[in-house]
């Protein structure tokens, strides 16, 4: 079974995140970059499927050269190889263009049965890229999985959403996105870390995946950020210490705001 895992390098949520002043794109230099946590769970699920069914796990990542670190992390967990789409032309691509690039990269691989992604990145939070990749591949999407089963022919998941838990099934090939409840990802072993250094990573340009430079990137994005700025600091509110009447004082505040 050939499994692709989509991974993304994101600014660590613990560091300060901002957009660049020049073109409103993510300021990648200002923050520590890490493999997005949800992707570790996607890699783990792919490894579990491989262990049960046999096959290969390929990591697919779009991002600047530095994203190599995120790819190595996935390889050190046990993925077999990686495709890294890295091209200056991609700078400033929006969610639709990102999905196009990822789908095109998947298209360069032979007979992929299953694509596994995280449900939503911690930086962009569009929550739509997995669904868009499925649309572009013309495949069924089984998203927000908290449990995944596959026999190599079909796939079944438990999908947890606002509406409850649904059982969703489809034939392969298909795309699955996972939530943080799916598993506990393994830690890379020392052996895994050493082995990852020798695993094949093919770096592809936009042209290599069959797209032209004017289909991606800031200039041709179907959406444009018009302005961006740090949020104005919230006006300091009132802070009082409870002297025994704290609950009553809060109600008085709420009453003043017409909230009770």
């Amino acid at each position, binding site marked *: 079974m050939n499994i692709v895992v989509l991974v993304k390098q994101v600014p660590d949520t613990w560091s300060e995140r901002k957009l660049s002043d020049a073109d409103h794109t993510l300021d990648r230099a200002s923050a520590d970059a890490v493999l997005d946590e949800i992707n570790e769970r996607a890699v783990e699920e792919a490894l579990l499927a491989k262990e049960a069914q046999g096959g290969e796990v390929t990591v697919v990542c779009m991002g600047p050269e530095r994203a190599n670190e995120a790819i190595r992390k996935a390889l050190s967990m046990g993925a077999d190889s990686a495709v890294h789409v890295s091209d200056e032309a991609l700078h400033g691509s929006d969610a639709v263009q990102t999905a196009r690039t990822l789908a095109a990269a998947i298209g360069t691989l032979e007979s992929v049965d299953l694509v596994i992604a995280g449900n939503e990145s911690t930086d962009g939070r569009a929550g*739509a890229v997995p669904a868009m990749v499925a*649309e572009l591949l013309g495949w069924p999407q089984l*998203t927000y999985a908290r449990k995944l089963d596959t026999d190599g022919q079909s796939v079944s998941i438990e999908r947890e959403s606002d509406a409850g838990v*649904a059982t969703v099934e489809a034939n392969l090939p298909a795309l699955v996105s996972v939530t943080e409840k799916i598993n506990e990802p393994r830690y890379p072993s020392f052996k895994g870390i050493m082995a990852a250094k020798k695993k094949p990573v093919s770096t592809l340009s936009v042209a290599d995946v069959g797209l032209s430079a004017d289909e991606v990137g800031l200039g041709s994005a179907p959406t444009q950020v*018009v302005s961006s700025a740090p949020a104005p600091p919230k006006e300091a509110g*009132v802070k009082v210490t409870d002297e025994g009447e704290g609950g009553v004082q809060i109600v008085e505040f709420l009453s003043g705001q017409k909230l009770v």
Partner: protein
Amino acid sequence: MSEVLVLVDHAAGEVRKVTLELLTAARRLGEPAAVVVGESGTAGKLADSLTAYGASKIYVAESAEAGQYLITPQVDVLASLVSSAQPAAVLVPASIDGKEIAGRLAVRTGSGLLSEAVDLDAEGVAAHSLFGGAYQASAKATTATTVVTVLPGSVEAEAASGAGEQVTAEVPAQDAGRAATVTGHQPAEAGDRPELTEAGVVVSGGRGVGSAENFAVIEKLADSLGAAVGASRAAVDSGYYPPQFQVGQTGKTVSPQLYVALGISGAIQHRAGMQTSKTIVAVNKDPEAPIFDIADYGMVGDLFKVAPQLTDEVEKRKS
């Protein structure tokens, strides 16, 4: 004036509040047309509410398959309406399903996608709150139609009567090779409390609550205020409260009129899910807790003393 399509979010024969918010936003951009995708007989029950919030048209797309496949029936209906009606925009709730429907629709129709808008103006420029509220941006699409997901609770719904003309729309037959089948469904337990993302008031507990049993204090306050109950990731990870109530980066994003945080320190991961709340009240025994930086009213104290007194006082004022 061009049409603006609004995908109707409905459950158990009722329009969810976010749909009325979307219809309100749609009126700024053009003529709002509600799109109902569901099983036979769905639209009839929803028509009055949609008309009361300004829907000039109601596209009725009913089919048994609507509930049997995941996401794709809604995408197919909207895509076909985008090509026939050429709307200025398609507004979809920024829910789990809504974001995916919007994503597929944008790809299929070649439209720009604006995600998690917190406001929308007459020119189709959307306001966004990024990185847990630390950053703001506004964005627009350069395409003929813009697909926008709008965060529930961010636009105030205003009634306005519309013509509500019902127009039948086809639900294209689903291709089992390209779509995923829903074979079972276990609805979320609908308790007596309002749904988290729809509630006007949310009362949340964090690590400071200390145990699952102690969450009763949070629930009692929530019930006195007619509020939904939320929990921080720390409280969920400690097993104090079920995961579907988690507010924050990896949980739900809420934007209520009033957010009451009890025993929550206010880590960036939590703030990401609640910072756009209109009024924030926090109770924490640590005077240095970061939640106080964003609270409109902060109470340094023991939540087990303050919350019950608060509950009693609210009850007293009600009677």
